[in-house]
């Protein structure tokens, strides 16, 4: 049981099994919290209409007619969004009203962009499959919202999660590599990217483990150079987490999926910092990241070439071999300018391979312009911000860490892939959340949104105070 008056750290040092504690609000009087489900519904309608408009716009630009599937597409997306909304209304009535509409809008926009690129590749239509996966994603969203009554339940399954994550990460090693990366498994014609699911599982594990051990991590250990901030914890506490992290990164290096590796590392450092408040972690994290990046960048030819491409995007042009994918992507962004060419009028298909998945943002950049692209980035920023806000409002450390972790996954993933295709950082293959073609990715992102909805529902149900810390 939670003892009022003790600090959070002390509380968990006393309680070896914090996940057995009761929900904090069960004993407190429940004030009337504005639910804002009406706002959510209105925003969902706007999001669906925007996507249908985009769909029609593509048809008008390419064929001069409103595409016949527009009504079906709108109805399908609308029904999915409505079902999700009803699930939230019923099971998480106090949830943040922005999360679901942002998910719907990004997913719908992604479908429009993939459909638009399908028109350039009549032989390979990806939008129908993506629609199926989106349906699966929304279904899982509903399942999570309905079945997961309290996010703290997940804390119980921390070690199940980490085992599952490692298995999922290891699975593709037994499947043939695709385009230089072993990150796919193929079952019955469908290809899955288990690493996508693993990131949610790892976030749950990191959050649970750090919530349980953060006191030990923060306050034990020896100081370096007599600086309190650069205090390292003892090996006994740190050991398991470093081992897990090394293992996951090792698996990823074996699979040559640098993007996901970077994502896990970033997630790990952010959560460690948030859990312990130690700046030293950041210093150590950055140092390790720099060393790792240097080592991988020099030793691994696959990665080394990516770094070279990033430094000299036009090297292949100067060598007379024509533009590579990155320069085609930059051309696409540049062609968009401020307002874009308009949906269906760009030539981002020149990017070729992965135009619908990793490089889908270039299509958005060319056809929607800087204005549209900024709107998309701001949508992601809002999603991240709502996640952080839910984390700030919560009281239990696991929930806070989980919210921060999930939001950070989105932020880091957007940064890594969007920065990669726009030439800010070396390109690493990764799916743009919700926008990009890729079933595993869209399903995972719906689960992330479902978890954030659940957490935000808990956060807003409990009595508030200034700092989000339990009232004494």
């Amino acid at each position, binding site marked *: 049981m939670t003892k009022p008056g003790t600090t*959070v750290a002390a509380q968990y040092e006393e309680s070896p099994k914090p996940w057995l504690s009761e929900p904090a609000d069960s004993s407190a009087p429940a004030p009337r919290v504005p639910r804002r489900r009406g706002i959510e519904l209105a925003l969902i309608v706007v999001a669906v209409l925007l996507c249908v408009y985009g769909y029609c716009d593509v048809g008008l630009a390419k064929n001069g007619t409103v595409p016949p599937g527009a009504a079906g597409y709108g109805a399908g997306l609308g029904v999915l969004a409505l079902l999700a909304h009803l699930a939230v209304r019923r099971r998480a009535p106090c949830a943040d009203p922005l999360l679901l509409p942002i998910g719907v809008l990004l997913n719908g926009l992604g479908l429009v962009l993939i459909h638009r690129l399908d028109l350039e590749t009549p032989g390979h239509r990806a939008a129908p499959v993506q629609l199926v996966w989106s349906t699966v994603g929304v279904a899982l969203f509903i399942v999570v919202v309905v079945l997961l009554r309290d996010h703290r339940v997940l804390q119980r399954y921390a070690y199940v999660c980490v085992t599952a994550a490692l298995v999922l990460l290891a699975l593709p090693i037994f499947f043939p590599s695709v385009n230089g990366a072993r990150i796919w498994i193929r079952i019955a014609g469908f290809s899955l990217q288990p690493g996508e699911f693993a990131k949610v599982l790892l976030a749950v594990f990191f959050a649970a483990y750090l919530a349980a051990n953060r006191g030990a991590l923060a306050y034990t250990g020896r100081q370096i150079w007599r600086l309190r901030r650069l205090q390292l914890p003892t090996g006994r506490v740190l050991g398991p987490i470093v081992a897990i992290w090394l293992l996951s990164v090792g698996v990823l290096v074996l699979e040559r999926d640098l993007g996901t590796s970077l994502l896990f590392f970033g997630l790990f450092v*952010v959560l460690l*910092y*948030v*859990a312990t*408040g130690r700046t030293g972690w950041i210093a150590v994290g950055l140092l390790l990241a720099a060393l790792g990046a240097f080592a991988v960048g020099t030793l691994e030819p696959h990665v080394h070439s990516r770094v070279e491409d990033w430094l000299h995007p*036009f090297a292949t*042009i100067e060598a007379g071999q*024509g*533009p590579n994918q990155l*320069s085609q992507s*930059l*051309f696409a*962004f*540049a*062609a*968009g*300018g*401020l307002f874009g*060419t*308009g949906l269906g009028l760009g*030539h981002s298909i*020149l990017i070729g391979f992965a135009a619908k998945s990793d490089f889908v943002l270039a299509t958005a*950049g060319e056809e929607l*312009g*800087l204005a549209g*692209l*900024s709107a998309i*980035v701001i949508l*992601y*920023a809002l999603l*991240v*911000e709502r996640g*952080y806000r839910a*984390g*700030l409002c919560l009281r239990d*450390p696991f929930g*806070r860490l989980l919210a*921060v972790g999930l*939001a*950070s996954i989105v*932020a*880091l993933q*957007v*940064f890594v892939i*969007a*920065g990669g295709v*726009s*030439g*800010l950082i070396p390109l690493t293959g990764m799916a743009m959340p919700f926008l990009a073609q890729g079933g595993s990715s869209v399903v995972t992102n719906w689960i992330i949104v479902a978890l954030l909805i659940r957490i935000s529902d808990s956060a807003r149900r409990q009595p508030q105070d200034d*700092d*989000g*810390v339990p009232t004494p």
Partner: protein
Amino acid sequence: MTRCIKHAAVFCALLLLALLVNITRVQLVQAQRYDDNPANRRQVIARYGRPRGAILVGGRPVTGSKDTGEQLRYERTYKNGPLYAPVTGFASQVYGTTFLEHAEDGILSGTDPLLTPFPLWNDVTRARNPGGDVVTTLDPAAQEAAYEGLAGRKGAVAAVEPSTGRILALVSSPSYDPAVLSGNRHSVERSWRRLNGDPDKPMLNRAVRQTYPPGSTFKVVTAAAALDAGVVTDLDEPTRSPDPYRLPGTSTALTNEGDGCADASLRAAFAWSCNTVFAKLGVDVGVTDLAATAAGFGFNDPGLRVPFSVARSTFDRHVDKAQLALSAIGQYNTRATPLQMAMVSAAVANGGQVPAPYLVERTTTVNGTTVATSGVRSRFRAMHPSTAVRMRELMRDVVERGTGTNAAIPGATVGGKTGTAQHGVGNSGTPYAWFVSWAQGEQDVEPTVAVAVVVEDASADRTDISGGGVAAPIARAVMEAVLGG
């Protein structure tokens, strides 16, 4: 923990902010540089994304556009491609453009800012103008007559309207169909290699890009210079020239094809094309005056454009007297394009004024609104008007009773000059047959057509080669086509 969450939130915000800044850099600051990168296909795709404007001859398009449905969507087509190839050139998706397709590319492809209804309109709407049309000055009947007259023999024909400089015919033979170079398929590359490897050089535009020794047709220039300089004052006065004529400072004797050239009058010497008389006249006029007259006709002008550039016709100023004597009869370093020789003939027909030749009457938008019009410009005065009158008389005599009787047209006044040009090392090459002429119809107040014909005629018997025999009938056909139309 709250403080750390806020720090982490700021970190995420910074990441996304960095993205926004970088996107702004790519999409706005660097955009132009990326757009202009030659490896960026967008400009090419946009260029072929809409039908190319047409080139019109006699009010009818001789070009078209074909929708291929490929990435480079529209491909150039040609009606009567070989006939008009020296005028249109080709518009290839692989090998670029030549001639009118090149010179008027801005209009044809729609990029010319003059096609825009309002300034900056397209910058706002991101629209692209449809390609405009190019209306040529060509006379389709004259063009066909010239092409049929050459009948595949190596040679060229240029015809202009003397009073304006409008080019009525521009034919080069053998020709090729520019349509085989239009697209981007593999066959285009094969055609390109075949055309470039062809020893007959079908892609060479002999009418404007090839210079030939003009031979005796250059005697028009020499005669005009002699009359202008006062070396000859009376057409019928003997010129006190020997036959054979020993080139000054050498032991080489210059002879004539026929007899009766010794001490002949200018009229007789012109009608029977006496080399000895004109070689001596050239020396008598002197290099300064002869070069000045040649320059007046347009020789040594590197900047002529019609609107595509025309090869420079040359008359060497740095010569000794023997070389001057040969230069005066269109040999040595004297070289001219067929178009240049048509201008020589046109100058005589036009009272001594050389009109600037041009091929584009006007350019229009796709709806027919005129974008630009070519004005008539007089370039040089080649000779006194009185000299021009006497030169017309001399040229008429050639057709009426001289070497050029094959060019006579019943009911029309025709003036001409034949030429047979030696070339090659030691004059071993098959001579070129030349004919330059002008014609005036019965109802016309002034000559309406000036023509130059050159036939390389490698297949003919060497002794048969003469401007009068081979080239004059072609010139007559062209003149008849113009007068008849």
